[in-house]
């Protein structure tokens, strides 16, 4: 169960982060979570949205790039070695991780991380087989 992430390019200057989020808010697109990976000059803003198609359209209409990427949402058991355990399993399965970030945990009790694997399909299969809870987009919605 893969999740569609929308990413965009922003310049690292005041107001740009807000403007991109506002473009989504103006079209009523809810943001489940976002991550900003930035350098001194630019940033890459990655969103998990309630409605990725509408979010992509909203960003493009506001003049932003909007790229779709498939990521995997994984539930992390609420104990000390939870995340390490999952990463060890991914490693054992030979899965390559490009980046990852935490999901907002405010509403639910479960912790979720968003992981971009080079091969998301294989990641879903391998992790599920090893008993890792791969979260479906619809479950993210209900949180």
């Amino acid at each position, binding site marked *: 169960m893969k999740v569609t*992430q929308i*990413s965009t*390019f*922003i*310049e690292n200057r005041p107001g*740009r982060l807000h403007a991109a989020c506002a473009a989504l808010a103006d079209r009523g697109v809810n943001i489940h979570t976002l991550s900003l*990976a*930035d*350098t001194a*000059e*630019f940033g*890459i803003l*990655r969103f998990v949205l309630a409605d990725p198609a509408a979010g992509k359209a909203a960003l493009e209409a506001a*003049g*932003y*790039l909007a*790229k779709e*990427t498939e990521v995997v949402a994984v539930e992390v058991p609420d104990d000390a070695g939870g995340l390490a355990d999952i990463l060890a399993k991914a490693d054992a399965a030979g899965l390559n991780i*490009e*980046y990852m970030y935490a999901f907002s945990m405010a509403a639910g009790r479960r912790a979720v991380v968003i992981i*971009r694997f080079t091969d998301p399909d294989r990641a879903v299969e391998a992790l599920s087989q090893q008993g890792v809870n791969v979260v479906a987009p619809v479950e993210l919605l209900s949180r």
Partner: protein
Amino acid sequence: MMRENWNDVGQGFHPVSAPDYLPAAQLRELQLRRLKAVVERAYANVAPFRERMVERGVTPADMRTLEDIAKLPFSIKTDLRDNYPFGLFASPMSEIVRLHASSGTTGKPIVVAYTQEDLQVWASVMLRTFSAAGIHRGDIVQNAYGYGLFTGGLGAHYGLEAIGATVVPTSGGNTDRQVMLMRDFGVTGICCTPSYFLHLIERAGELGINLRELPLRTGIFGAEPWSEGMRARIEQESGIKAFDIYGLSEIIGPGVGSECAAQAGLHIFEDHFYPEIIDPETCRVLPDGEEGELVLTTLSKRAMPMIRYRTRDITHIITEPCSCGRTVRRIARVARRSDDMFIIRGVNVFPSQIETALLSVEGVLPHYRILLSREHGLDQMNVEVEIGAELFSDQVSAMEALHKRLAHAVERITGIRAGVRLVEPHSIPRSEGKARRVWDERGE
């Protein structure tokens, strides 16, 4: 030898284009006859030209062969400013039926004039321009060159009417309406600057219109230097064939030369405009094939003859016969103007080099601009590059690698270490006429 093609409508033939196929000997003879006449005319009627001739001890009678043109003095842009507004006219005002003027970004504008005969010649060379691009009766051509004092709009307009195409005189600007009319009228050809056409493609996309799905098939682009990379991008994104045309107001406007279906250099309409290439430093005439500054002499212009006008455009003459059968010589497309050149830390740089560098990285030409500034007394060059979908990755490492490759390419090609800044789409201002590439904020 290609006479049988003259009547091929698909090739855009029109009887007026016959001079393009004259045997060389006949063409040279015609040029010499016209050269003698125009020098006599300018000598008799244009005082500043006569004074220079007298200074050099040259008279019109010295024009015995075409090579004798090298005895004549050059003219330059400042001559037009110095004699503003009407000082270079060779016809009385009663015979002048049209004036055009440059916008004059620096100082006084330059003024150019046309008699009725001049306008007929202009329409005929524009007809030959469109004919070479395959435009013919039945085409619907949107003319998005600015109408008014600028020569582009009206110059193209009368050439299109002469060829029998349907003209849509949109002039420049109002991009959304341009896109709407292009779609609604089933436009098959468009004239504008290449940079404005890129803007049109972009805007059409935003409006949900794919130019590839429209009947549009030909673009006639000029008024600014552009590169093969830009052509590739235009042709790929819009599905049209993009032709380069050449001209300048001082000579006549658009219509000095144009590409044919071979898209391998621009045929100069040499029965009216005599080309020479000179070394811009020594002013020595260079043999065909060598690169230098293009110098043009108007062989038939009446209202305002220009003798050996230095265009500031860098090119070379191609003498090999063209596959299209035209016998008039070609110039290589003008990618550089010596006017556009800037000097940074003692090194000469042309915007076209930056373009080549950016294009070399991913095979696509992003929208860009060059910012020159002075920091702590040292010249700095920064190149802003807009990140489009084809360059964007959601991985920071990939974007940093791209950034590095762009900076390396600029340094490799210009020899200058430049800052490269990746910027958001649409953040660089678009122009509706000539693209502005260089923003020099160094002051004096």
